[in-house]
């Protein structure tokens, strides 16, 4: 019972830096500059519907691409021997230890009109591509930054599938492709679900990527919120209400995902 005292610093930390800010956000969202109650902040948000839609849309695309790239990598990785697995996981994690800004700047210099990619294309005689300052560039940036968060949960589920279960499926007449579709994919679904959560949520609220790679033309929710707090449009009340609505949408989304996931989980256990 003594052990619970060790949790106190953490509880305090949570109270000051997680719970209190959420209350502040809620509070600011419902008042005007003079401190009276209002819903005007929410009605003012109507103008930004397209920003909401764009943010969720781009994040969804990035998430789908992360699954398409991440699942095969996880699957192949889980079949390798332990030594190869360890090295590969290291390599996948390695970029995450570098500064996020630095990585994104690196993509700028790759995707620029006179960047590495276009110089290479010109070298092999192909026309240059306009990628920088487009939505494509933003998606590339998101996928690059978030794909490890898709690979790791999927990999850790696949690697735990018992070899004898796979042998049982083969024994019952499943060819290798059937083993994949009837067994490995259904069994790894919980990993995919947590991967989706870990990619989609930060994707919705990202702002540096859209500014650096999207050129700030295609404003995303993160940019909009930043603008209200730090930018010229200074309006923390509107910023708070946007944050609040985004938070609610994300929570609802996660709740639905988890309900779906729980259904799987209860069968899993």
């Amino acid at each position, binding site marked *: 019972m003594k052990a619970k005292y060790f949790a106190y610093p953490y509880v305090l930390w949570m109270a000051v830096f997680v719970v209190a800010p959420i209350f502040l956000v809620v509070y600011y969202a419902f008042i005007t500059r003079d401190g009276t109650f209002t819903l005007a902040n929410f009605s003012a948000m109507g103008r930004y519907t397209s920003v909401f839609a764009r943010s969720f849309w781009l994040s969804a695309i990035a998430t789908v691409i992360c699954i398409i790239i991440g699942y095969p990598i996880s699957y192949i990785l*889980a*079949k390798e*021997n*332990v030594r190869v697995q360890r090295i590969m996981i290291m390599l996948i994690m390695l970029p995450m230890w570098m500064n996020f800004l630095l990585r994104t700047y690196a993509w700028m210099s790759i995707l620029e009109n006179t960047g590495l990619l276009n110089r290479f294309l010109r070298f092999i005689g192909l026309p240059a591509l306009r990628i920088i300052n487009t939505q494509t560039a933003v998606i590339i940036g998101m996928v690059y930054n978030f794909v490890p968060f898709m690979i790791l949960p999927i990999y850790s589920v*696949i*690697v735990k*599938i*018992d*070899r*004898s*279960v*796979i*042998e*049982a*499926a*083969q*024994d*019952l*007449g*499943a*060819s290798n492709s*059937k083993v994949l579709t*009837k*067994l490995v994919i*259904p*069994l790894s*679904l919980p990993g995919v679900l947590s991967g989706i959560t870990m990619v989609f949520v930060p994707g919705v609220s990202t702002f540096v990527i859209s500014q650096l790679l999207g050129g700030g033309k295609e404003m995303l929710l993160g940019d909009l919120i930043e603008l209200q707090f730090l930018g010229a449009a200074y309006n923390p009340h509107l910023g708070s209400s946007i944050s609040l609505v985004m938070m609610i949408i994300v929570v609802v989304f996660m709740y639905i995902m988890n309900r779906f996931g729980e259904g*799987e989980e*209860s*069968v*899993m*256990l």
Partner: protein
Amino acid sequence: MSKELIRLSDCTMAFDQNVVLHNINLSINDQEFLTLLGPSGCGKTTMLRIIGGFQQPTSGDVYFDGVRINDVPPYKRTINTVFQKYALFTHLNVFENVAFGLKLQRPNGKKIDKEEINERVMEMLRVVSLKGFEKRSVSTLSGGQQQRVAIARALVNRPKVLLLDEPLGALDMRLRKDMQNELKRIQQMTGITFVYVTHDQEEALAMSDTVVVIEAGIIQQIGTPQHIYDEPQNAFVADFIGESNIVDGIMLSDNVVEIFGRKFQCIDSGFETNEPVDVVIRPEDIEIVPVENGMLTGTVINITFRGVLYDIIVDFAGYKWLIQTTALSPVGTRLGMRIQPEGIHIMKKSQFSGMFGDYSSYSVEYDEIGDAEHEVEIDPDAEDV
């Protein structure tokens, strides 16, 4: 005599430098209940995996119905397996687990229709006494029920052969006994050939038509349970199957053996004159008589009550004999013993001679203690998924 279904011909299996099976020759008949019996790490599971197609022998051939099947993958063999740890599909319910194989089958290139799958699955659930469980998640079932699902899942495909890898290993004693009867019943009802792997000699004797005793990757003896018990081939088999007193003897002539300097009548012949041999005497074959009538005399040094019988340990001429008797003789009693000629079994000397000391019975517990590292050793693919 039913016909041969599976034949292993000169099968050798080696992982790197570690040879786990040496030139195995074994023939399995149609509709037979055959048990591969031996301590952990003896190679019995590897034999099963070769038959199932999960491993290919380093050398030698596997025949099924006269056709060589070395290169046929598991999913193309009409053989199904019940795995040691059940290996059920946790994302599917009981019905879907059992139906898994049927849904994959394409007899005449067509899917089996829903009606038939439904019928066959329900029928099989009835056979394993799991009617009414079809909607249940397999994770909510007890160990015994999970085992039945695993058996139903394999049998529903109507395989020619069912392989069972220590299927009752994880169950408690009572349930094991029930499931032994159940398995025997299912085997007789379906007429499917069972190849059963176990390290439990009682289980092997109770269920099998044929027992194959394996040790160190070599078949030590093949025979009916009765034959294996009554006429063990060597000291290992005598020790592993049942309890036994194994003593040194010298074959003086046909039907006469010398033990501890006394002559005993026996019914074995065909040995050289004065050939040293191993002599097996089962504890229940020793008759306790008054000292003056005994062929050997000794003192009772220990008694264990076993319910129907007493196990008593008697020191005859320095060797501690295990005797099973219904009559209680207190510790310290001097008594004599007689052995009928039929109770004496003569075996040729082998690499196992002298390994088992005084009255010996194979200890399952010891086997399990020594188990862990050996299993890892013989499974070099353990890392892969």
